[in-house]
């Protein structure tokens, strides 16, 4: 299962929560260049992973946001097209949800931490990440 390396994930998460690179560097006791490199690598790995999923399942990519770690895609199931949402959740990895599935609390709490939503509400989260 895909997961970012621990240190990289920590830096990525801090950035996803809105911290500036210089603040992350201070908090982690590393150089700003190291933060920049970790973020660049994290973005590339997330892109790679999301693209891999879209390729394997022939999903149509609508949006990949590696800053906050999510992908929106259209999944063709028989004659029906369903919206699919993929989230990278630290320590867990990538989780997928269809538009009509329940969104668990841990996902909604993660979305609140990243500023993707303000309440534990699936509708609000989808409204904010949809284009």
């Amino acid at each position: 299962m895909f997961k970012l390396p621990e240190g990289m994930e920590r830096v990525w998460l801090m950035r996803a929560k809105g911290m500036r690179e210089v603040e992350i560097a201070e908090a982690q006791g590393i150089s700003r260049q190291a933060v920049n490199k970790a973020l660049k690598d994290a973005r590339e790995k997330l892109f790679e992973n999301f693209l891999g999923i879209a390729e394997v399942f022939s999903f149509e990519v609508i949006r990949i946001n590696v800053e906050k770690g999510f992908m929106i895609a259209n999944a063709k199931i028989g004659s029906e097209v369903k919206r699919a949402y993929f989230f990278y959740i630290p320590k867990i990895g990538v989780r997928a949800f269809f538009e009509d599935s329940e969104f668990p609390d841990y996902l909604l709490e993660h979305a609140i931490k990243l500023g993707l939503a303000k309440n534990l509400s699936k509708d609000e989260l989808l409204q904010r990440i949809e284009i």
Partner: protein
Amino acid sequence: MKLENVRPMNFSGIPFALVVIAFPLIIILPRAMSEVWWPLWILGWLILSASWGTGVGIDGSLIVLKYVFGKLKIRIPFGEIEEITALSKLLARYFKWEIALFVICIIYAFFDLITMPRELLKGYYFGDIGLIIFGLFYIFAFILPFSRRILVGILAYLFILPILLYQKTGNITGDDISMFMVLAAILGFAILDIYGKDYILIRTKKDVYLLTCRSADNVIKTVLKVAQNVQTA
């Protein structure tokens, strides 16, 4: 590697600055300096043409956007990209300055139309009316997704044309109707052009770029695949 049928739009950075320079040269200055209007007008069109994107390529782990007849290359490092999105409509929230430019054009044209004397040739009025019509159209295009209802709405709003002209001249002739038809045809092409394409938005920490293409999904997957192959090689 060149990406076929993909063009960068002039909505950000230097290309947009060229658009901002071109607009007064094409629209405002030729009227203000009526004796030497044509060199300014030609220069304006030249600058506007230079702002149009000519192609998109991938060079190593860089996405290269080409402008100014291929002479200006804007390089986006793959690792700097925070988001790639396929758009079904142009998004106002990402391109506020473009909307501001169109709003300025509409206000200018409207003000010019109101203050213009009544006895002039109708071509003068058509210039301003055309600007208002196309300015409004592009603002709609930034806000509204494509649908048949929107298409009908846009065509219906063409009725502003004769109303504006009648307000100014007090009559509508057969020639005017021919002119309306020409403007309607140009607007029809603009609708096909704007709504017939897919759009891809690439956002980095520093800027937002917009590409047009035939299939956003194919282009997104190609860009990501090529960039990743380069990095893992």
